[in-house]
């Protein structure tokens, strides 16, 4: 077989992969649109005013794991204390921060040390002290030795008193109705609804962004942040909503993950042996409940519950995304027994294969395409005009899929200024050339680190915030 023939077939395989993945994305985007429409209708018929005042609204323990978050922590805690919810407690777990995280909390929330004899349902690194706020009776701070995010969440779980727990990130500012929106379906059917996540958006300064009124909210002027914004929209509206509709919601995101407490206890809490805890936990709950043949659901909702801090440099973005790639690889590998196994229903037959195809194998095909396409062009195996047309087709197809996510979000929330929507739509086709290469590099790096068994967090420095933070 000649080199040209080999190149020809590599190019064909790469295109085949591209077509297959984009066909899957299109199918998911259409399913996501339907799911969004149904949830929007349900939400419009909901009596949030009554739920927000009713003593029958299920109380929630919010657990915030923080490590070296001095610049972000107070804004996040303020937003959690301001949640419009009848009964919730906020448990901040300081995971042995080396900066002034604890001091900031101490100063702003008037912390006083009290001993609290909590349960030890999950073993964690040693708790140094527990603080209560003299200003907010529902705020508790647990200071412990460093043990990683999962360990910190487990420490919070040991202190949680309520039937549902909501794990959140320290760099996210929440909307006042976040819990109410998130718990809406759990309250209707708590026996089946084990976990809920919801749409989060991204900004460089979440507190400032969340202060802007709905309908007038801005998308960051920098294209780099706008591309990340589009990436989030695609992930939530095109993918997770569809996964949720068909019963294979495989990622309750760490920034907002509501779980029934007894479920977390039953599966042994958050796992410390993985790079991140969120995807692995979702896989584990699916695996456990499917294996036992129990009726359950894990949902993703389209309601915007908060804004999380996005990296402001390429380097930070690569650090974040390579970590995400690693945890996907780790989870798919760890739960490989579910792959194409009918016992696990849509999780085994659709969800896990989709993850394998679109995430785990993506770096392999991306590298193959990047190496083979220039060679094919140089060798004359591939016509440059056809190549250019393919790029146009892929860029705009990608743009159309992203546009569906923008449309879906806007129909649901009417959050952003019309001019910002137009800008997002114009940027969408450029994503392939300006943003995807960064993701490609991140995924490659993540895959390499996964193969080496690296499980480090590689936390990047937080962005500088406004004076209010």
């Amino acid at each position, binding site marked *: 077989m000649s080199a040209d023939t080999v190149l020809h077939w590599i190019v064909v395989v790469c295109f085949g992969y591209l077509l297959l993945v984009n066909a899957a994305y299109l199918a998911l985007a259409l399913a996501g649109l339907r799911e969004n429409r149904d949830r929007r209708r349900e939400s419009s018929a909901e009596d949030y005013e009554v739920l927000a005042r009713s003593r029958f609204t299920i109380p929630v323990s919010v657990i915030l794991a923080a490590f070296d978050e001095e610049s972000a922590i107070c804004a996040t805690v303020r937003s959690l204390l301001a949640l419009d919810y009848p009964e919730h407690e906020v448990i901040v777990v300081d995971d042995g921060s080396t900066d002034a995280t604890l001091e900031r909390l101490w100063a702003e929330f008037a912390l006083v040390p*009290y*001993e609290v*004899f909590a349960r030890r349902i999950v073993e964690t690194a040693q708790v140094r002290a527990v603080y209560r706020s003299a200003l907010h009776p529902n705020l508790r701070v647990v200071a412990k030795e460093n043990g990683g995010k999962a360990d910190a969440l487990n420490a919070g779980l040991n202190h949680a008193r309520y039937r549902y727990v909501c794990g959140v990130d320290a760099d996210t500012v929440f909307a006042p109705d976040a819990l109410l929106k998130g718990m809406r379906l759990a309250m209707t059917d708590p026996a089946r609804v084990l976990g809920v996540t919801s749409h989060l958006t991204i900004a460089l300064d979440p507190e400032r962004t969340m202060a802007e009124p709905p309908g007038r909210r801005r998308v960051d002027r920098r294209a780099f942040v706008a591309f990340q914004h589009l990436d989030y929209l695609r992930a939530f509206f095109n993918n997770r909503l569809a996964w949720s509709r068909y019963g294979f919601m495989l990622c309750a995101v760490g920034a907002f993950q509501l779980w029934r407490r007894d479920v977390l206890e039953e599966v042994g809490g958050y796992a410390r042996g993985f790079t991140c805890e969120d995807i692995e936990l979702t896989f584990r709950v699916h695996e456990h409940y499917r294996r036992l043949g129990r009726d359950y659901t894990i949902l993703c909702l389209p309601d915007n519950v908060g804004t999380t801090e996005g990296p402001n440099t390429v380097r930070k973005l690569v650090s974040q995304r390579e970590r995400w790639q690693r945890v996907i690889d780790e989870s798919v590998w760890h739960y490989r027994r579910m792959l194409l196994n009918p016992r696990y229903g849509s999780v085994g037959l659709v969800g896990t294969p989709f993850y394998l195809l679109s995430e785990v194998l993506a770096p392999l095909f991306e590298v193959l395409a990047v190496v083979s396409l220039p060679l094919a062009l140089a060798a004359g195996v591939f016509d440059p005009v056809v190549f250019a047309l393919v790029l146009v*087709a*892929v860029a705009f*197809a990608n743009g159309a899929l992203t546009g569906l996510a923008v449309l879906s979000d806007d*129909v649901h929330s009417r959050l952003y200024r019309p001019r910002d*929507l137009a800008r997002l739509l114009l940027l969408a086709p450029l994503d392939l050339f300006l943003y995807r290469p960064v993701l490609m590099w991140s995924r490659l790096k993540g895959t390499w680190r996964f193969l080496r068994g690296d499980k480090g967090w590689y936390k990047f420095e937080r962005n500088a915030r406004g004076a209010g933070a």
Partner: protein
Amino acid sequence: VGLRTAVELAAAAAVLAWLAVALATVVGRAGYERRRRTGTLARSGAWSERRLVAHAASHRGEAGKWRRIAALRELARREHPRSRTLLRTAVRDRDRDVAGAAVKALGDRGDAWAVEQLVDALRRDRASRSRVAAQLERLTPAIGPRLVPLLEDLDPAVRFWAATLLGLCPEHGRAELVRHARDPEANVRAAVMEALGERGDRSAAPVVRALLGDAEWFVRLHACRSLGRIGETADAARVAPLLRDRNWWVRAAAKDALRGLGLPAVGALLPYLEDADAFARNGAAEVLQDIGLVDTIAAHGAGRDLLERILAAGGEGYRAAALVRADLAGHEERAQAG
């Protein structure tokens, strides 16, 4: 040439698809902004009465269901003469979304007729019972007399909700609640315990005391909490043994109850400082810390032996926290004096 044509077509289709989605987004948003400015966001607001009634009467398919819900809402808002009939049908509909929308409209209405329909919905279980209860909750305590007969319902879930709601109607159903403290269904007994505490009726304390030893942990838990609200000083001695209950949540509830009883509970707690059960020792120390005894003794100097007993029961972390608090109080005092 065939490949090139196919790729050209694919590129053209992709560009058109992007344009179509972009236009749909921009035009859709412009339409929304226009409707918002003119105050016509709800399409049902522009429907004729005849159309509204037709939509609200029944539905077919998903789209029809949501048209029905919108029409029901609009008719209820307008207090249309036919809205009663339509809401009565809707609240009994097999579709839980339709029934749920009717429940909300009935709660907004809030008159005697609406209460009857909501009570009926609670019995029939067509809409989520917690949502029906949330609407009835808005109408308490006036609806108390209508809730009392529900305690005799054959369905334990109805009795549970009746008891829970009666907690907000202190003038009604005392005798019936007391009788149902012996209900065969544990969930109902737990709801009765919670309700008796919520009502703040101290004369019901003997009934609550009797259930501190219930076989079900969640009944003991609610009995504990209620006694913390309506019990008397002597009840501390009855609650304190639950600090060593086999269920962690009951132990936590016992701590809550003893905190609720406050300083009068101190005498009942002291024997537990040397209890063989670590949970009981820790629990007693935690309550003494939370009701302020530890800080008071530390500030005034008297009772050092007692303080040492409490600190020993609490352990190292407890002692360290107490020292920091004493230090903080000292700083505050000096600042005030200065």
